[in-house]
C-alpha cells in the first residue's frame, strides 16, 4: 500500500436508527440469534448484579449485624462505609489523614497535568513530577512546617500505592533512558553486557525481583548501604521497570529513519545534542502508546508489594475485611478495591488509546 494517499471520506447513505440497528445487530439470521443470546445473557447478569449490589444491599455504616442476619444475600456495602478510611489511609494517624488525602490529590493532579501536551518537554515533565513528588513526600512525612512527623512504617493504603508508583516512575524513567542508550551503544562490550542484563531481568517475574531486593539484598550488601525495606523494593521495581521501558524506548529509536541521526552528524552536532534534541524526542513520540501501557501495568503491579508485606491499598482492603466481625464481606471489599484500581487504570488506558488514535500510530 502506498504510504501517502489522500483519505476521502465516503458519502454514507443517510441512516435512521432502524437501519442502523438492523445493520449492527440483525444483519443476518445468525446475527439476530447472536444478538438475542448475548442480550439475554447481559440482561441476566445486569439483573443479578443490580439486585446484589443495589436492591438487596445494605449501605448504612456499622450495620454488620444486619448484614449477617440478612438472608437475601445482597451486598454488604456497610463494610466499605464503615472502614473506608483503613483502605485509603492504612495505619496513618487519624488526625493527620487529611494530609494523606491532599498528597494523593496532588499526585493525581500531576498525573492529569502530564497528559497535557504543553508539559511534554525534557524540562517541564521531570520538573512537574519532581515538584509533585516533593510536595507529596513533605506532606506525608511531615516534620516540617509544624506538621507532625509520620514515618514510612505508618504509611499505607492508597497513598502508599501512589507513593510506590510515583517513586518507581521517577526513578525508573531516567534509568530506562540510560539503559536504552547503553544498549544501543556503538561499543560492543557495553551494548552486549547491557543487553544481557536487560534480557535476564526481563525474563524474571517481578515478584521474585521484589522478593530478592526486600529479603536477600541486606544479606549481600555491605552494612550501611542496605536502607529501608520499602526503598529497596522501590529500587528493585524501578530496575525492572527500567529494563522494560528501555526496550520500549529502543523500539522507538529503531523506528526512526537512520537519516535523522546522520543529518545531525553532518550538521556537526555532538553525541549529547544528537540524543537530546534529535533522537530521544522523536523516539518518545514513537513509543508513546507502549509507554502509557507500561505505566498502566506498573500501577497495577504495585499491588504485588502486598505479598512482600507492605500495607498498600490491596493489603489494607484485606485487613479492613479481615476482622472477625466483617469476614463475611470479603467480596464486597475486593469489589471496592477493584473499583479504586479500575478508576485509575481505566482512565490511563483510555488516555493511551486516545493518544494512539491522535498520533495515528495504529493506522498504517
Amino acid at each position, binding site marked *: 500500500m502506498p504510504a501517502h494517499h489522500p483519505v476521502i471520506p465516503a458519502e454514507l447513505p443517510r441512516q435512521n436508527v432502524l437501519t442502523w440497528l438492523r445493520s449492527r445487530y440483525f444483519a443476518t439470521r445468525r446475527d439476530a440469534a447472536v444478538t438475542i443470546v448475548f442480550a439475554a445473557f447481559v440482561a441476566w447478569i445486569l439483573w443479578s448484579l443490580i439486585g446484589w449490589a443495589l436492591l438487596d444491599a445494605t449501605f448504612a455504616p456499622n450495620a454488620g449485624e444486619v448484614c449477617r442476619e440478612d438472608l437475601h444475600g445482597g451486598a454488604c456495602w456497610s463494610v466499605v462505609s464503615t472502614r473506608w478510611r483503613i483502605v485509603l489511609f492504612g495505619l496513618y494517624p487519624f488526625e493527620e489523614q487529611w494530609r494523606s488525602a491532599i498528597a494523593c490529590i496532588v499526585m493525581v493532579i500531576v498525573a492529569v497535568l502530564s497528559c497535557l501536551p504543553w508539559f511534554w518537554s525534557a524540562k517541564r515533565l521531570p520538573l512537574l513530577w519532581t515538584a509533585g513528588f516533593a510536595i507529596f513526600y513533605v506532606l506525608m512525612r511531615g516534620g516540617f512546617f509544624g506538621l507532625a512527623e509520620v514515618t514510612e512504617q505508618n504509611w499505607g493504603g492508597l497513598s502508599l500505592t501512589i507513593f510506590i508508583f510515583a517513586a518507581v516512575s521517577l526513578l525508573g524513567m531516567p534509568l530506562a533512558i540510560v539503559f536504552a542508550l547503553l544498549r544501543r551503544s556503538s*561499543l560492543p562490550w557495553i551494548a552486549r553486557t547491557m543487553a544481557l542484563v536487560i534480557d535476564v531481568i526481563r525474563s524474571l517475574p517481578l515478584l521474585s525481583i521484589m522478593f530478592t531486593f526486600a529479603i536477600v539484598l541486606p544479606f549481600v550488601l555491605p552494612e550501611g548501604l542496605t536502607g529501608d525495606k520499602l526503598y529497596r523494593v522501590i529500587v528493585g521495581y524501578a530496575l525492572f521497570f527500567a529494563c522494560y521501558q528501555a526496550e520500549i524506548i529502543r523500539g522507538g529509536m529503531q523506528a526512526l529513519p537512520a537519516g535523522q541521526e546522520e543529518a545531525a552528524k553532518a550538521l556537526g552536532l555532538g553525541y549529547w545534542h544528537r540524543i537530546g534534541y534529535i533522537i530521544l524526542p522523536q523516539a518518545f513520540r514513537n513509543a508513546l502508546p507502549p509507554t502509557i501501557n507500561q505505566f498502566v501495568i506498573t500501577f497495577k503491579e504495585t499491588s504485588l508489594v502486598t505479598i512482600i508485606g507492605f500495607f498498600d491499598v490491596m493489603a489494607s482492603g484485606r485487613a479492613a475485611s479481615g476482622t472477625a466481625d466483617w469476614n463475611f464481606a470479603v467480596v464486597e471489599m475486593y469489589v471496592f478495591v477493584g473499583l479504586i484500581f479500575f478508576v485509575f487504570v481505566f482512565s490511563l488506558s483510555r488516555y493511551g488509546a486516545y493518544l494512539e488514535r491522535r498520533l495515528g500510530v495504529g493506522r498504517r
Partner: protein
Amino acid sequence: MAAILKDRRVRETVLQGAFVGSIILVVVVFAVTARANLEAQGLTSGFGFLERSTGWRISFSLIEYSTSSPYWKAILVGILNSLFLGAIALPLATILGVTVGVMRTSGNGMAELVGATFVELFRNVPLILQLLFWYALLLALPSPRDAEPVLGSIALTGRGIYVPGLNVAGGAVFAAALILLLAFGLSLWLKAKRWPNLHLKDAGRERGGLWVLALLAVVAAFWLGRLPETPFLSVPEPKGLNYRGGIRISPELMACVIAISIYGAAYIAEIVRAGFNAVPKGQGEAGHALGLTNWQIFSRIRLPLAIRIVMPTLINQYVWLFKATTIGIAISFTDFFMVISTAINQSGQTLELIAILMSGFLIINYSIAWVLNRVNAAIKLRGTQLRI
C-alpha cells in the same frame, strides 16, 4: 596520560573495561559480603543442603512427596506445579482470548459490546486482586456435606471441586500428555514441511489419521496404567463429611487457573483483535468474490492470516503470563516461587535458592520462547504472499 586518552581506541577500550568491570565488581562485593554473613551465621554455602530432608509439607504435588523428601525434590514439585498451572491456564487463556477477540471484530454490535466489557473489566484490575476475589468466591461454595452434585457427578464444594476421574497411575497420565504434545508437534511439522505442495484434502486426511492414532495411544496408555483392584472410572460420592473418589481440584489451583486464564484472555483478546484488524480488507473481499461462505472466509483466510500476524506478540505474552503464575503464593498455591521462599525461610541458604529460582525461570522462559519461535518460523508465510 592525557595524550593516551586522546586516542579514540584507547578511550573506548578503557570505557568498556570500566563498564564491564564495575558490573563484575558489584557481583564480587555481593559474593564476598554474603560469604562473610554466612560464616557469621554458621552456615556453609554450597548446594549440599539440597540432599537434606525438608520437614515441611506441600499441599499439592504431582509426584510422590513427603516431609522426609530432600530439598531438591521439593523444588522439583514446585517447578512441576508451576508448569502444570501454566500448561492448563495458558491454553485456556488462548481459547477464551481468541473467542473474545473474534467477538470484538465480528461486526455484531451486541457481541462487540460483551467482548469490550470483558476486556476492559479484567484488564484494568490487578491480577492479584482478581485471584483473591475468585479464591474468596470458591471458598464460599457450600461445604461438602451440603453440596448437591451438578451435571450428574461433579461436586462444587468449598473444599475443592470433585470431578470423575480415571484410576490410573501417574506415569500413564504423563505418557498421555507426552503423546498429545508429540502429535501436536508432528502435525505442525508435517504441515510446515510439505505445505506448498500438499493438497488441502490430503492434509486434512493425514492430520485426521495422526490424531486418531494419538487418541488410540492415549487410551492404550490409560488402560495399561490402570490401578489394580479399583474400578477404571472413579466417581466422587459423598461419604461422611467429605467426598470420596474422583479427582479433587483444590480451590487454590482452581482460583489460579480461573484468574490467570481470564486475565490472560483479556490481553490475548486485544492482541487477536489487532491481528484481525491488520488483515487487509481485500483478502476477505477476494474470498467473497470467489464465492466462499462467511465461515470459509473466516476459518481459511482471516484466522490463519491473523494468527501469523500476532504470533510474535503472542509469544511475549505467553512468557509474561507464565511469569504471572508466581502470583499463586498470595493464596498459598505451592508453585516454584513459593517453594523457594519457604525453603529460604527454613534453610537460610538464601543465595543458592535465589540462584536456583532465577536460573529456573530463565530456562523455562527461554524454552517457551524458543519453542514458540520455532512454531512461528514453521507457520509463517514465506516470500511475498501477504502484502500489508
